[in-house]
């Protein structure tokens, strides 16, 4: 017990820090490694990122286990705020989704139209890996299926595989199965185990993926670090923060596009 206390004691004695529940895609893309040191220099505040699926990240916020939630599923975020768990949803940036598929594109789904691409995969019964974990990416995927008026998840189609895992593990699965998969561009660009996969659909405006940030409501959870959390949010949408986001690149390619509206 004393050991436990000693360890937690050192944790508490550290400089001001906040806990941010965010998504695996933002964490794994390397964005936080790029912008957090800049924020620390500006504010002196340490940011601890817990990377989860959007659904789980919102749940962590709902329980009061994080000070700030930074995710990408607009409908779920708005419900989070409407239910009183978040103070206000502030758009910060967007990236985009891409449809990844086998190099020889057996479903002939390549193009600029994501809905047409999904239909082609359905008709060809080509293997498709779904996150299946209620993440923002999963929510987006289900939205596109809805627009095709097809529903492989409910049909339990044999070629449609729900992995129930994060973006990276799902990409590993798709690489191993040589399957189609919807991914965010950031994770795809920093993903190393691509095997035979490549981008088949990109550039559709429907594929834009908006990120929003919210302070967990201190009225619900009194221990929320309101001031430090608000500072982080303010910095993200400030000119400095937005520039930091825009400057993050992998192999010369910009991953996130700041679009904060104050």
């Amino acid at each position: 017990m004393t050991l436990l206390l000693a360890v937690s004691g050192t944790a508490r004695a550290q400089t001001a820090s906040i806990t941010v529940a965010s998504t695996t895609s933002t964490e794994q893309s390397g964005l936080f490694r790029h912008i957090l040191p800049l924020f620390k220099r500006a504010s002196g505040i340490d940011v601890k990122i817990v990377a989860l699926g959007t659904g789980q990240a919102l749940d962590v916020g709902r329980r009061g286990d994080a000070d700030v939630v930074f995710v990408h599923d607009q409908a779920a975020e708005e419900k989070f705020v409407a239910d009183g768990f978040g103070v206000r949803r502030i758009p910060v940036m967007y990236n985009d989704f891409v449809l990844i598929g086998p190099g020889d594109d057996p479903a002939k789904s390549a193009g600029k139209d994501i809905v047409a691409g999904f239909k082609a995969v359905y008709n060809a019964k080509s293997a498709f890996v779904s996150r299946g974990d209620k993440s923002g990416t999963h929510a987006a995927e289900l939205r596109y299926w809805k627009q095709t008026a097809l529903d492989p998840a409910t049909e339990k189609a044999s070629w449609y595989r729900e992995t129930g895992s994060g973006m990276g593990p799902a990409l590993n699965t798709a690489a191993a199965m040589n399957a189609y998969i919807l991914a965010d561009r950031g994770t795809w660009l920093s993903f190393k185990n691509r095997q035979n996969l490549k981008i088949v659909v990109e550039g559709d405006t429907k594929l834009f993926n908006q990120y929003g940030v919210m302070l967990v409501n201190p009225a619900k959870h009194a221990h929320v670090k309101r001031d430090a959390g608000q500072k982080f949010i303010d910095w993200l949408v400030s000119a400095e923060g937005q520039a930091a986001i825009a400057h993050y690149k992998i192999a010369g390619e910009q991953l996130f596009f700041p679009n904060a509206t104050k």
Partner: protein
Amino acid sequence: MIADAFLQALALVSSFDPAVISIVWLSLKVSGAAALIGALIALPLAAWVVQTRSLLREPMIVLLNASLGLPPVIVGLVVYLLLSRTGPMGALGWLFTPAGMIFAQVILVTPIIAALARQVLEDAQQEYQDLFASLALSRWQSLQTLLFETRFSLLVLLLAGFGRAIAEVGAVMMVGGNIAGHTRVMTTAIALETSKGELALALALGLILVFIVVVINIAAHYARQVLRRRYA
């Protein structure tokens, strides 16, 4: 891939990358503390089970043996709910901290240490009960002597507990949150690198983990022999 991982592991170790060192150090601290605290709970528990005639004895043995198979993820989930701000222990603020990870791992290692210690103590008791009775030792004296007589075996149990703790990923991932520089340990780092498709790097970290576990076991093996030799 494997050869690549070996080279990367060597590079990681020889570069003394502070991020890697802090991850390794946190792993050792968290799992070491969990094994020690687990032993402090498990040994009295095992000793009680060995000498008691209470009706709770048999249920406790079954409970201990059954909890050997506790999946770390379940322990992680339960501890997560306990430590969550809205949970019964939320006020401690232990979620996403090393203290919380230790707490979860204590739950994982205590049954192993207790179940094995019970076996060790019971075997020793079989051997010594006539001697103790004919020396008219009290129950408490017998127990003390049993613990002392089995001290070398109990040291190995501590290692078994440490081994389970440092190798598990499910509980520390859920309760620690794999926060870079704060709660990231070797196993969660391996899981992360795997999910980023950095398979060689993940394997390199895995090699370091295996290497550390082996080194600790070798050290303990010789420490045990030296202690024995010096003593005897």
